[in-house]
């Protein structure tokens, strides 16, 4: 097991208004580990995901993000994706006019530039991944996420995780808006698609998905920082006691400063 991904004292602000949004995040991920990041709504969990991907809406003011020991801060979003960093979106974009299957094929070619698989083989893989996530084949002939229900969009994101087979998978609230059946399918697919080489960051508000995809570490996130790290039991505590635990911890750090 080796260090795959490190976030070191990461601080960032929103470009538009200059507001600080990450206040010193530290996180180390080894191959094969699943890390859950939990926090109340509005705590900036999604921002962390987007800063990792290099969204132009945020500017890093301090700290670093290392992939296999090398900083990725100088890389554009597409270059980060090509390194094998993948993010599933909480609200995936609809791109009318781009066919889903073609989009998936091109994404695969982008990320796996040295793979000389035939188009037919990739296309078959796509079909098979669609089956795994219980997505009707008909959706592959539609335009990207266009006319998809919330659940179908999430399945489409997980399909992409499976197809692109990244080293770092960031799942941003993959469980939001899913009914019980869809949640089970999505969770089972995540378990199937994650590999011993892959590190997973699961950003979530609720414990329910963690019952299905068990995390190695649970981090409590608040006010742009990880304020507590524990194991699965921490998620259970939060489920029982709510995020009041966060308030207590936030209070502690405030006192400590």
């Amino acid at each position: 097991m080796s260090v795959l991904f490190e976030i070191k004292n990461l601080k960032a602000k929103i470009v538009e208004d200059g507001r600080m949004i990450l206040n010193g995040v530290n996180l180390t991920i080894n191959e094969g580990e699943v890390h859950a990041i939990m926090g109340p709504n509005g705590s900036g969990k999604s921002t962390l995901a987007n800063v990792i991907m290099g969204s132009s809406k945020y500017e890093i003011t301090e700290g670093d993000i290392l992939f296999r020991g090398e900083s990725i801060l100088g890389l554009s979003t597409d270059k980060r994706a090509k390194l094998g960093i993948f993010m599933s979106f909480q609200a995936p974009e609809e791109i009318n006019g781009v066919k889903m299957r073609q989009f998936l094929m091109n994404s695969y070619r982008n990320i796996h530039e040295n793979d000389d698989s035939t188009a037919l083989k990739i296309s078959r893989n796509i079909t098979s991944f669609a089956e795994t996530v219980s997505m009707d084949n008909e959706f592959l002939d539609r335009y990207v996420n266009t006319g998809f229900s919330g659940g179908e969009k999430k399945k489409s994101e997980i399909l992409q995780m499976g197809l692109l087979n990244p080293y770092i998978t960031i799942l941003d609230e993959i469980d939001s808006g899913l009914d019980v059946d869809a949640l089970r399918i999505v969770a089972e697919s995540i378990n199937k698609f994650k590999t011993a080489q892959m590190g997973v960051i699961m950003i979530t508000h609720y414990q329910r998905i963690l019952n299905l995809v068990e995390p190695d570490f649970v981090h409590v996130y608040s006010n742009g920082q990880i304020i507590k790290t524990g194991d699965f039991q921490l998620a259970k505590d939060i489920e029982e006691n709510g995020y009041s635990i966060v308030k207590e911890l936030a209070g502690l750090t405030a006192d400590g400063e």
Partner: protein
Amino acid sequence: MNTVYEKPTVNVHGDLLMVEHITERINSEKDYNKDIIDNIIKNSENSDLSKIRLFKFSEYEKLGFPVWKRAKLNGFDPKNYKKINIKTNLPLINTESAGIEAMEILGVYDFEGADRKFVLMSDAFFNSGFYINGKDYNNKEIVINYDLNENIIENTIIKMPENTNLRIIRIINGTKNDGFKNNVLRGVLEKNSSLTIINVNILGENDINIDNEFFDLKENSSLNIFDLHISGKISSPHIVVRFSEKNAKANIKPYFLGYGNTVTDMLYLMRFYGKDTFGSINGKGVLKDTAKSVFRGFLDLKKGAKEATADESEYTLVLSEKARAEAIPSLLVDENEVNAAHAASVGTINEDKLYYLMTRGFSTEEAKKLISMAIFEPFIDEIEQLHPETAEVIRNVIISKI
């Protein structure tokens, strides 16, 4: 025989009186003259047509060529006049040899077009064009290939008798020089007939293409026009649809791609007279570089067009700060019991979509190209259902130019 004349601006609407714009004109020393028309008539066996040519010429000779500020046309010098041949997949009757039915349509239907001078040019001096009768080609597909290396002055007449159905694909291939095509097309759709026209204008950056089309729709007839304009120093479609009887339907889908210094100057006019008629204009386009587009969509619902539905939308994606998109939608309603809506907007690349694609490994440029191409895909998909070869041509051209 009553004549029908349509122009975009009708001066009186209820109590409202409009002031008409007077086009500035410049006479050309190279303009086609009496000698040319006399020579055409001398070699023609169609006396009815010769009378029409002469009649149109009497108006033509009084007009100079227009000055179009938006499209940067500053008068015009016609090229040397000669007769030409145009390639078609099926044998067609030339307008020059057309009989009385065609002459009636020529005599009855007239319009202002992109400019009156250009309509008259094609009426008096056409050197090509066809008379297409739907009953001779029922349920068939006509493909016409135009090559702008020829100086094309076209006059085409389409008659769709009752219960006929026809599809016409007009492919215009531009030049690297200064090609010119001017067209007048008149179509009459009788009861229950159906006509689909796919106009594929793939121009060079110095070509001028003026396409004047006028359709009269009788009871329960149906017209579909796909109108694609790629590039062109000036590409100027002027399409008029007259819903003269009840239940007539028409859809126009204008799509355009401008790049370099090209100008796409479009006018689509739907005028509703009949009850329960339905017309829609749904346009989309992409502009790059310093290209310019002008989109005029007129929906004009006349008194008596009860329960007519008129709908118009237009969206232009602008990829460069120097590109200019103008949309001028207008809705004129003289009848109370109608459903009418219009919308036009101009946008740039959506940053969130761009970012989403980049997280899937597309570079900024690739993602922009994909989003731009996506504008055309639904249009190409539709054409694919009708004529796969044409869809392939369009897709390849757009991919190479976008």
